[in-house]
C-alpha cells in the first residue's frame, strides 16, 4: 500500500500535479507575503539546481556559488540602475557575464582537486564580495544598488506586483527543471556523474576531464546568474551582503537536505527549509539550536537527503519484489514441468 503510494510519486504524471499546485498557490495563499516567500524560494531553488550540476553530479564542491549569484544580480542591477538598460537585455547580459566569468574561474580552479578546489572557490567568492563592497565607483560599495528595473512586462503585466513576479519566477524554475531533467538523463549527465566517481576512473573511460568539468562549472554559474538576475528584479535593491559566503552555505544545506545529485532534491530541500525558517522566525537566531541538530541527524542517517534516501528505499523495495516474483515464477515453471512429466 505504502509502496504503491510511494511509487505513484515517481510517476512522470506526478509532475503535472505539482505544476498545478504551484499554479494555484497564489490563489490559496493567505496573504501576499506568503506568495513572496514562495517566489524567493523558487529563485533560490534555481541557484541550487545550478550548484547541483557541479557539486551534485560532478562532485566538485564549489564555494563561489553565492558569489556568482551576486554577480548575476549586480550585473543586472548596475546595468539597469546606472546605465539605464531595460530589464531583458540586462538579463541576457547577466547570464553572459556569469557564464564568461565562470569559464575563466573554471579553467583555473578546476586544475585543483577536491578540498583545494573548494578552498580556491571559497577565495574566489570572497574576492567577489570584496569587489562589491570596496569598488565603490562601480558598485556603490556598502550602500548597494537601488532603483533596479523590474522585469519589463511590455504593458501587459506589471512585474512590480507580487503575483506576476511569482509566475515569472515559476516559469524560469520550470525551464530550469526541464533542462536539468534532460541533462541528468543524458549521456552528458552520465559523464558528469562518472567524474564524481573518480578522476582516474573517468579518464580511463576516455572522458576528457577538464572539458567536462569546465562545462559543468559554466552551466552551474550560469544558473546562479539566472537566479541572481531574477532576484535583483524581484527585490529591486541589492548590496554586498548578497555575496556573503553564508548564502553559499545556505544553498549547500538546501542541497544536502533535499538530496545531492537528485532531480527533485534541490526543490524539496529549498522549499522545505525556506518554509521551516519562516515558521521558526519567532525564535530569531535561536532557531539554529533546532536547525543544527536536525542537519546533523539528516547528514548522518540520510546522507543522500530526503529525495535520495526515498528513491533508494523505493528502488530496493520494488527490485526486491520483482526478484521474488521472478523466483516464484521460476519455481512454478519447474513444478509445472514435473507434473507434466508425471502425466
Amino acid at each position: 500500500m505504502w509502496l504503491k503510494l510511494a511509487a505513484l510519486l515517481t510517476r512522470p504524471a506526478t509532475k503535472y500535479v505539482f505544476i498545478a499546485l504551484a499554479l494555484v498557490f497564489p490563489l490559496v495563499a493567505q496573504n501576499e507575503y506568503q506568495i513572496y516567500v514562495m517566489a524567493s524560494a523558487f529563485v533560490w531553488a534555481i541557484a541550487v539546481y545550478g550548484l547541483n550540476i557541479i557539486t551534485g553530479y560532478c562532485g566538485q564542491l564549489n564555494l563561489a556559488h553565492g558569489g556568482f549569484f551576486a554577480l548575476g544580480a549586480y550585473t543586472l542591477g548596475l546595468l539597469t540602475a546606472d546605465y539605464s538598460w531595460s530589464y531583458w537585455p540586462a538579463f541576457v547580459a547577466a547570464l553572459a557575464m556569469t557564464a564568461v566569468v565562470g569559464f575563466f574561474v573554471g579553467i583555473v580552479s578546476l586544475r585543483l582537486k577536491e578540498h583545494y578546489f573548494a578552498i580556491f572557490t571559497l577565495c574566489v567568492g570572497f574576492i567577489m564580495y570584496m569587489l562589491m563592497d570596496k569598488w565603490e565607483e562601480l558598485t556603490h560599495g556598502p550602500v548597494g544598488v537601488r532603483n533596479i528595473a523590474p522585469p519589463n512586462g511590455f504593458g501587459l503585466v506589471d512585474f512590480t506586483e507580487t503575483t506576476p513576479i511569482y509566475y515569472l519566477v515559476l516559469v524560469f524554475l520550470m525551464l530550469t527543471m526541464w533542462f536539468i531533467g534532460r541533462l541528468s538523463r543524458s549521456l552528458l549527465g552520465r559523464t558528469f556523474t562518472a567524474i564524481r566517481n573518480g578522476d582516474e576512473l573517468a579518464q580511463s573511460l576516455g572522458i576528457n576531464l577538464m572539458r567536462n568539468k569546465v562545462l559543468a562549472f559554466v552551466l552551474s554559474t550560469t544558473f546562479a546568474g539566472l537566479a541572481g538576475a531574477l532576484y535583483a528584479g524581484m527585490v529591486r535593491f541589492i548590496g554586498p551582503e548578497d555575496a556573503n559566503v553564508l548564502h553559499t552555505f545556505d544553498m549547500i544545506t538546501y542541497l544536502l537536505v533535499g538530496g545531492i545529485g537528485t532531480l527533485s532534491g534541490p526543490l524539496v530541500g529549498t522549499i522545505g527549509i525556506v518554509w521551516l525558517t519562516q515558521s521558526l522566525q519567532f525564535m530569531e537566531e535561536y532557531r539554529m539550536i533546532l536547525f543544527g541538530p536536525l542537519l546533523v541527524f539528516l547528514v548522518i542517517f540520510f546522507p543522500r537527503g530526503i529525495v535520495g534516501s526515498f528513491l533508494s528505499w523505493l528502488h530496493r523495495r520494488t527490485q526486491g519484489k520483482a526478484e521474488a516474483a521472478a523466483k516464484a515464477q521460476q519455481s512454478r515453471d519447474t513444478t509445472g514441468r514435473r507434473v507434466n512429466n508425471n502425466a
Partner: protein
Amino acid sequence: MLRIENLTKMFGGLAAVKDISVEFEANQVNAIIGPNGAGKSTFFNLVAGSHKPSSGRIIFDGEDITTLRCDHIAQRGVGRTFQTTNLFEQASVLDNLIVGHRLRTRSGLWDVLVNSRRLQQEEKLSREKAREALDFVGLSHVENRFIADITQEERKRVAFALAMATDPKILLLDEPAAGVNPEETDGLAQLIRKMKDHGLTVCLIEHKMDMIMGIADKIMVLDHGEKIAEGAPEQVREDPAVIEAYLGSDDDAAA
C-alpha cells in the same frame, strides 16, 4: 600489439619502473607478477597514460602513445580496471555501465537541449553496449540492483564490464582476483580466458600464482622496478632469479 622500449619512471629519487623493454603479442594473456612495490601498478599507469614516463617509449598498435593523455589512450583502445574501483553505490549496475561507451559517442550540450536524434541513437547504443558487456561477464540478472547490494566478486565483474563497454583492444587488469575466494577466482580466470577467445589482448597483474599459471601465455616478472624474467609460465617458474626474488624477500614468500 604493445611494445615498450626502455621505459623508466622516477618518483623523486626512486625508480619505480627501471628501463623496461618488453613486447606483448595480440590475442594473448600476459601476466605481470612481482613482490609488493615492484612497480607493477606504475607500469600500468604508464601504459594507460595516467603517469608520464621519465624516459622510454610506448608503442601501441604501431602508434607512439608515450605522450598522449589518458583519455586519448583510452579512445585508441586501451581499457583498464583498478585495484579498487569506485562505482556509484546508489545507482543500478546498468546505470553505472552506460557511460562506458561514452568515448565512442559525440553528443554535447546542444544535443541535450534539442534532444537530437544523434543523442537518442547514441544513448540507445550505449545502453546496448552496457547490456552486452554485462551479459559477457555473466551478470545480466543483477542489472537493476544497486552496486551497494552486490557481492565483491560481482563488483569485480562489473569493473570488467565497464572496461569492456569502451570497446578496447587491450585490457589492463590490476589484481582482478584480489579479495575473492578460490572458487570465484576460478570463475574470473574463466572469464579472462573468454576475453581472449573473443580476440582481446589481456595484461593482468596478479599475486595468485595458481591462477596465473593456468591462464597466462606469457609472464613478465618485476622486482624493484626492473624486469628480472620474461617468458612462458613453465620457463619463468624455473628461473633462478625469480625464485630468488620471491624467496629472497621473506615478506613476499607467502604471495
